[in-house]
């Protein structure tokens, strides 16, 4: 790297032009002259220290105006040849007048810039409030089960990195907001501040930016690690067999689905996805989802008297967990059920006093079995036996008679037989 050039990772707010003026001015006093600037990196070139140099930044306006350049030159101000959205001027003449000597002309010149800043401030404010409001309930309702769901979803490292990311991003957001609001206010009053301090802000900005980049890298690495895809041939429930059959929970629903399987020709499942994963909480975690349909012409259902005139389709999702301990399995399942019930209550699918006990079914061979749903909404099943958890959900047509099929192995085997 050339010794007469310095590349600085500059994280001063790109639009905090008052501080950047001080920064470039102080660097010139040490013998480093602005050569090029960008969003994050500024290039300086070595020269003789010039303590009397002043830099001033103005927002670019359309195409370069030769007359403006001539007027500025006549006033003792030269322009730095650097691309970007700012015109940067400097002078070594201590007697040169400031670029603007009255507030009205300054305000007039900066009107477009301050209008744009105000618009961005409003967007930032609305976005920030929306993000805080959207996540506030999750933060306030922190429970061990919720925490485990987050670890399962994103991984422990990612979960640790997220607060760092949020705090640093939030800090930069607040700083941007305060700085921009101050700039807009000063422009409105036709004033500008020179000689602002920049060192502490630069140091904090660099640290925050590095932390944000590192936490983003952790989040990305966490999302890519530990996953593997499964084919339909490889898919297997890691129970020896299903702990419970639908006919034990909802016999009438099971009769309907069995009849549908017998009487319909199911097409190849599309959008079939299955993957295996592991993390600090679960030794094994298998996720399955698929969509199937029959594509048949309208079908009449004598038990309901309703004819389906549209493509019959069902969506199935299941997750199978082998937790590292029974305690983890119990707390995790409680968290999942609480969250699902909360969501169902909000959407009106369940009464507000619903809890784990209210959806529990008496099923032999399991430590817990919970089920809720009906033909018009999605059906949900939750099972736990020791360290093993099974969570399945199904949603069909609004008026579908195809209810939850618990017999996944049998169903898939049926599909395979029909396709052969």
């Amino acid at each position, binding site marked *: 790297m050339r010794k007469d050039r310095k590349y600085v990772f500059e994280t001063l707010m790109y639009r905090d032009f008052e501080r950047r003026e001080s920064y470039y001015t102080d660097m010139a006093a040490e013998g480093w002259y602005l050569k090029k600037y960008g969003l994050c990196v500024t290039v300086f070139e070595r020269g003789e220290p010039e303590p009397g140099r002043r830099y001033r930044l103005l927002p670019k306006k359309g195409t370069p105006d030769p*007359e403006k*350049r*001539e*007027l500025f030159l006549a*006033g003792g101000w030269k322009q730095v040849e650097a691309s970007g959205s700012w015109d940067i001027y400097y002078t070594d003449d201590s007697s040169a007048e400031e670029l*603007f*000597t009255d507030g009205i*002309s300054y305000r*007039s010149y900066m009107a477009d810039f301050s209008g744009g800043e105000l618009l961005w401030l409003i967007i930032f404010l609305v976005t920030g409030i929306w993000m805080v409001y959207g996540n506030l309930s999750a933060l306030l309702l922190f429970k061990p089960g919720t925490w485990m769901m987050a670890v399962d979803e994103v991984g422990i490292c990612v979960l640790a990195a997220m607060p760092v990311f949020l705090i640093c991003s939030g800090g930069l957001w607040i700083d941007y907001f305060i700085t921009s609001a101050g700039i807009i206010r000063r422009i409105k009053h036709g004033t500008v501040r020179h000689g602002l301090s920049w060192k502490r802000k630069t140091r904090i900005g660099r640290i925050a930016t590095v932390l944000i980049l590192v936490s983003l890298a952790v989040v990305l690495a966490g999302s890519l690690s530990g996953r593997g895809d499964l084919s339909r041939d490889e898919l297997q429930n890691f129970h020896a067999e299903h702990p419970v059959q639908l006919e034990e929970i909802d016999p009438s629903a099971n009769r309907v689905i069995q009849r549908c399987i017998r009487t319909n020709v199911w097409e190849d499942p599309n959008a079939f996805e299955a993957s295996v994963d592991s993390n600090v909480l679960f030794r094994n975690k298998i996720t399955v989802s698929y969509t199937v349909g029959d594509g048949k012409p309208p079908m009449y259902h004598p038990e309901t008297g309703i004819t389906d005139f549209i493509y019959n389709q069902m969506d199935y999702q299941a997750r199978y967990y082998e937790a590292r301990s029974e305690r983890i399995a119990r707390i995790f399942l409680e968290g999942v059920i609480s969250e699902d019930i909360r969501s169902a209550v909000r959407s009106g699918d369940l009464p507000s006093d619903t809890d784990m006990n209210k959806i529990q079914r008496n099923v032999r061979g399991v430590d817990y079995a919970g089920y809720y749903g009906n033909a018009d909404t999605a059906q949900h099943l939750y099972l736990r036996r020791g360290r093993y958890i099974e969570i399945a959900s199904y949603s069909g047509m609004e008026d579908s008679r195809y209810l939850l099929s618990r017999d996944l192995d049998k169903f898939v085997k049926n599909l395979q037989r029909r396709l052969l």
Partner: protein
Amino acid sequence: MSKKPLEILTETMFYVLMAFYRQEMCGTEIARYVRELTKGEVSMGPGTLYTILSQFQREDLIEKTGSEGRKITYAITERGRQMYQSELRRLRRCLADAEAAGAERGKL
């Protein structure tokens, strides 16, 4: 740039219009002219001058009459003359009122 039409001239605007009232002038000469005329009392930064010239052109108070490289010469328009004279009358009226008020109270 401000989109509102000019109603009252600032001090700096007044002196710029005054400069053009006398004769055609190049933009780069105006700052020196005003500084010499006011003996340094009124100073004008290049950004201020540029903004005023742009605004005057938009308001049709001055017009371009020639160019030499990057130097452009302007002349005052009829509307500019009227604006200058109107402002001059306003300032004289203010001064006269101030002097009269001072005479009434026995102070000046």
